[in-house]
């Protein structure tokens, strides 16, 4: 049976005003996140994935605005609720971990004080109890000697350890949604695996829904249940993970999948280097300039986002044509 999604994003459009022009880095984004599931968002830098995440918690900078759309969490539109309400949601219901753990911590405070601050902001408990909670969650991370870690400063820990501490802090509040924005990009391969393992644990033990943003398809293959591929601000394809890897439909997804490095020494063809997104709001396929399969029908493009099979959405006019007729 299908569960009610815990978070739904409908028609999200974001605009950035610069002194010269207004650009639209996120357009028509729709997705739903279920509890206990991982939705992966893949895309290259500049495809709008981080802005999408930031908008969920209303953390966008001043010159960036949500034009229209809605973000529904437990019958509440996060875009319309008061500043007070959104503060309660942040951390407690929807938590976020960032790409670079070195920057996310305050360098002059110990790990312990980060823990206590976070826990006591949301729960009415004493410092002593908060410290106990901190030890308890840090033990679950499998970090060696958790009590000693609590007394240390962020710069004394490695990036991988810090990222695991970060996850432990978010875990201590048992959020129902975790937004992980490139959680392993700054880490080396062995650390990456440990962080992924911990995210997996979080999902299984606490039934947390995870929004996993990354450009690494290996990470997606490892963790995600469903994948949305973003390009030029649009979700160009969305499907369950096995279907996406086995039957990619959109040309961009195919290019992405073909360009994975592996342990075989196969030569990989590189695609044309230039990525120039159309900045104005014209309804043109964002991948048109780089697409090798494009033909005349692609130029007059209506960017319909169509369900090609059950749960498999594609935004490509050629595929609609070949299937529709």
């Amino acid at each position, binding site marked *: 049976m299908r569960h009610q999604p815990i978070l739904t994003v409908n028609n999200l459009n974001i605009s950035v005003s610069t002194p010269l022009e207004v650009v639209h880095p996120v357009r028509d984004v729709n997705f739903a996140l279920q509890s206990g599931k991982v939705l992966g968002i893949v895309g290259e830098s500049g495809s709008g994935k981080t802005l999408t995440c930031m908008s969920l918690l209303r953390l966008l900078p001043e010159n960036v605005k949500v034009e229209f759309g809605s973000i529904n969490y437990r019958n509440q539109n996060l875009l319309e609720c008061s500043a007070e309400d959104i503060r309660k949601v942040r951390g407690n219901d929807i938590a976020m971990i960032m790409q670079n753990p070195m920057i996310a911590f305050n360098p002059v405070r110990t790990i312990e004080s980060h823990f206590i601050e976070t826990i006591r902001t949301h729960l009415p408990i004493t410092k002593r109890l908060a410290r106990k909670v901190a030890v308890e969650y840090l033990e679950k991370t499998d970090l060696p000697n958790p009590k000693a870690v609590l007394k240390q400063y962020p710069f004394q820990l490695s990036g991988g350890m810090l990222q695991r501490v970060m996850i432990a802090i978010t875990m201590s509040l048992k959020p129902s949604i975790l937004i992980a924005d490139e959680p392993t990009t700054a880490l080396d391969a062995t650390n990456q695996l440990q962080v992924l393992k911990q995210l997996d644990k979080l999902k299984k033990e606490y039934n947390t829904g995870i929004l996993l943003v990354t450009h690494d398809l290996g990470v997606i293959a*490892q963790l995600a249940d469903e994948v949305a591929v973003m390009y030029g601000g649009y979700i160009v394809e969305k499907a369950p993970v096995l279907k996406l890897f086995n039957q990619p439909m959109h040309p961009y997804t195919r290019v992405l999948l073909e360009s994975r490095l592996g342990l075989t020494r196969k030569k990989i063809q*590189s695609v044309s280097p230039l990525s120039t997104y159309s900045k104005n709001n014209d309804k043109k396929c964002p991948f048109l300039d780089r697409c090798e399969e494009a033909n005349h029908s692609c130029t007059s493009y209506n960017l319909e986002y169509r369900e090609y099979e059950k749960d498999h959405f594609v935004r490509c006019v050629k595929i609609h044509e070949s299937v529709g007729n």
Partner: protein
Amino acid sequence: MSLLVLKNIKKSFFLKNSVFEKRRSIEAVKDISLTLEQGVCLGIVGESGSGKSTLGKIILGLEKPDQGEVCFLGKNLHNLNSKELKELRQNLQVVFQDCYSAVNPRLTIGESIAEPLRNYKRLSSAEEEKQVLELLKKVGLRREDIHKYPSQFSGGQLQRINIARAIALKPKLIILDEAVSALDALVQIQILNLLAQLKEEFQLSYLFISHDLQAVNYIADCLVVMHQGEIVERLDDMEQLEQLANPVSKKLLSSVLPPFPGYMKCEEI
């Protein structure tokens, strides 16, 4: 004659955690010997903190080893006067991971690329521009880009500019210190393909330093694995990658994520 010979290189750093603590030394590189031939790409893999970047800096002459010799083109790099060193450095270039901090933000990229040419060659400005344009073309950038500033480029484009600068003097050896680690998958492939093509064209040698075994596997001809300042394993034939036997190498191998969903690697470890 081998292009580069390292003999028993040692380097340690001093550090202390607090004002009151006695300073202690950390051996970043312990007794490393290596040889690199012309036209070969040697991969150096290891976890963060294994001393691979320090080794790169020693070869470049940016760090002085406590012990040992670096022989580049038959001369001991750390035993030369500045004039001889300058002469030798024509043949030795580097590309770093952080492409943004590797270029001067106030110079146009044309000027950045021309810098090594100005250091070593006396060219007329027309000749210089011609060479810069040629280099830009080689790395897949456009003519118009010559007057742009670094902030107008993406990471992948800037990394290509750094590579253009590195090949400007037609060096013999380029040290690539995590040169593709910060880039997206698609851009990574482009850069790796570009490097492979340039290697063929100019008979370049690379020292490819990375923690990513997949990228190393794609480009390198042979491989050493470093751990805590030591070389723990060497591999001369990349086809035998799966046969790496040292526990450190095995850990690196096993942390490569499988390319398809369905294998839960997390549970094994």
